[in-house]
């Protein structure tokens, strides 16, 4: 009888406690992502001005940033998932001959995974003549 009493109470408590556990919950929602523009071998980037736009392929939400830290833009707190990236703007460069020039440029990627903590992506710069 004592054993039965014990089992009943324990079962009830465990049943109640189970409400919080035994659940597939995935709460690692956000990460930060750094997008770095890489220049062609023949030039050196001095300054970049422009917009980096990242679009989450899952829900079509996009984020833009024009705050450059050198050649890198950082997005804090973006939803983890697959993204497309488009960078467009202007860059001041020095050529191999030492000449300073300003060009429009683009860099893009149709697929990049923002999954790690943090995520880093490098994009090849396309200088537009």
């Amino acid at each position, binding site marked *: *009888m004592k054993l*039965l009493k014990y089992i*009943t109470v324990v*079962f*009830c408590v465990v*049943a109640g406690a*189970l*409400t919080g556990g*035994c*659940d*597939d*919950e*995935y*709460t*690692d*929602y956000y990460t930060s992502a750094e997008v770095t523009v890489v220049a062609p071998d023949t030039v050196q980037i001095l300054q970049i001005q422009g917009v980096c736009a990242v679009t989450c*392929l*899952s*829900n*079509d*939400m996009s984020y833009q940033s024009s705050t450059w830290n050198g050649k890198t833009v950082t997005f804090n707190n973006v*939803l*983890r*998932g*697959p993204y497309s990236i488009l960078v467009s703007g202007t860059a001041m460069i020095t050529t191999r001959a030492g000449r300073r020039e300003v060009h429009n440029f683009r860099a893009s990627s149709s*697929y990049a*995974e923002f*999954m790690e903590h943090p995520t880093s992506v490098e994009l090849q710069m396309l200088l537009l003549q």
Partner: protein
Amino acid sequence: MKRISMIMAWVLGLGWTVWAGDGRDTIAEAGTTLAHLEEYHSLQAITDASFRKNPVQRWQQYATNLLEVAAYYNSRGEDEAFVLQAGNRQWAVGGRVDSYYQLGDRNVVWGGASYQQGGRKNVKWNSTSDFQAVYPYVLADSMGGNLDSERYTFYGGCATRLGNWMIGEELTFRAEHEWRTYDPRPRGIVTDLLARLGGAYDWNEYRWGVGAGFHFYKQTNDVDFYQEAGVIPEYQMTGLGEDYERFKGTNNSAYYKAAGWLLDVNILPQDCKGIWFAAEMGLSPYRRVITTLNALPISKLNVWDYSATAGWNAPSGRWYALAGMKLQRRLGNELIAGSSSSNDYQELGYLTMYRNRFLNINGVGGWNMAGFETRVEAGFQNYKATYEYPSREMSFSKVYGRIDARWKKMLGEGGKLSVSGYAAYYHNIDDELQMPYALMDEARAAMVRQCALMAQSSYLTAGGGARYDWLPRWKAPFGVFIDLQGGYRGNKETSGYEVSASAGLFF
């Protein structure tokens, strides 16, 4: 149809065997008397039956046997749908068989089957069957339409006593087919199987039972367009108006699968008098798989159900009371799909984007007097649904009160009339709606607003009906019955009705 005929024959055959093979002499003892029907139809019996889900607790649920065969018609209609995704009109016509029979002192069997055809009208933003089971992960479009349906069910169970021990088992099966005959043409085929096992031990005037169950569910769901010019995008809805943008458009073929479980514990007095307790919890994990994307499991919905009730049945049998709670939690996990190669997507992980909780706490008191019974209920409901990003929330709280009354009278020789009525008012005391309207198109925003408006409104329901059973001595043990019920439901936005009619025979 052939399968249904077999099931009906099995159940009717059982009943025939009972009647034909029973060794009792008097007509009055051979079947069920009108007075004994009360233990099936009284308000207390209906309340009590909702807690006897463990098959062992159906032992001696009723003192008498009953086999009932009926044809029925149900219909409901609203000006504007209370639930957009369920439509504003629904009807069903069908036939059913239900039986409960004691095989001697050690065994009780019960079983039934039904078949119905029906339909819904103006179903919007939902191209999936069983919306209440699998929401929010449904396929949807902005056009909607009417649906036809066909459903058959059967159930059967048995409880056996072995000294102080008892074991019970029960199987419940439902198959349903829903479709539309014009574009967009959704088609859903559902199979739903629940198997329950229970064990109990009689001790200290109580029956201490535990049980477990297994739930197997499958639904195939697709939407076709026969006219190329009229193809509209189908959305993979993910909750509170959000959809999985990446896979919207023409991924119109999917299936759901769930293999769930449940556990229950119940402590009921052997003589049905005194305090009692029943609790249950279970999990149904529905996976939604897109077949056009090489069986991509786009979402996993974990539906947790919990209930716990404690009650008291007075020794006099005149009154009873109970207090309980029911909680349902839904956790929606969305797939993070990676790069694709020929429609074969990588699975990078999941995110729990959707959460939903519905809590109902209530207290009930009932009184039985000669020829009249009443039941009052008061309760509290709290609902909250959230979507992680972009952030969305819909919630409400309601308090409610309900009263049921039933009056019964024997009429003439072999006739029994029972008239019942109810009224309930659900008062909304708090609500919240947060949506990223700036990111939503007009149609989607309107849908969410409409759903919230209906969910967060206070509403009144009331209704009543009558049932007439006729079992004259010269017809015993076969009796006939007719049952007519009607009801009203309305809030400040809309109102609706529901009617049901059934007629058949019993013995």
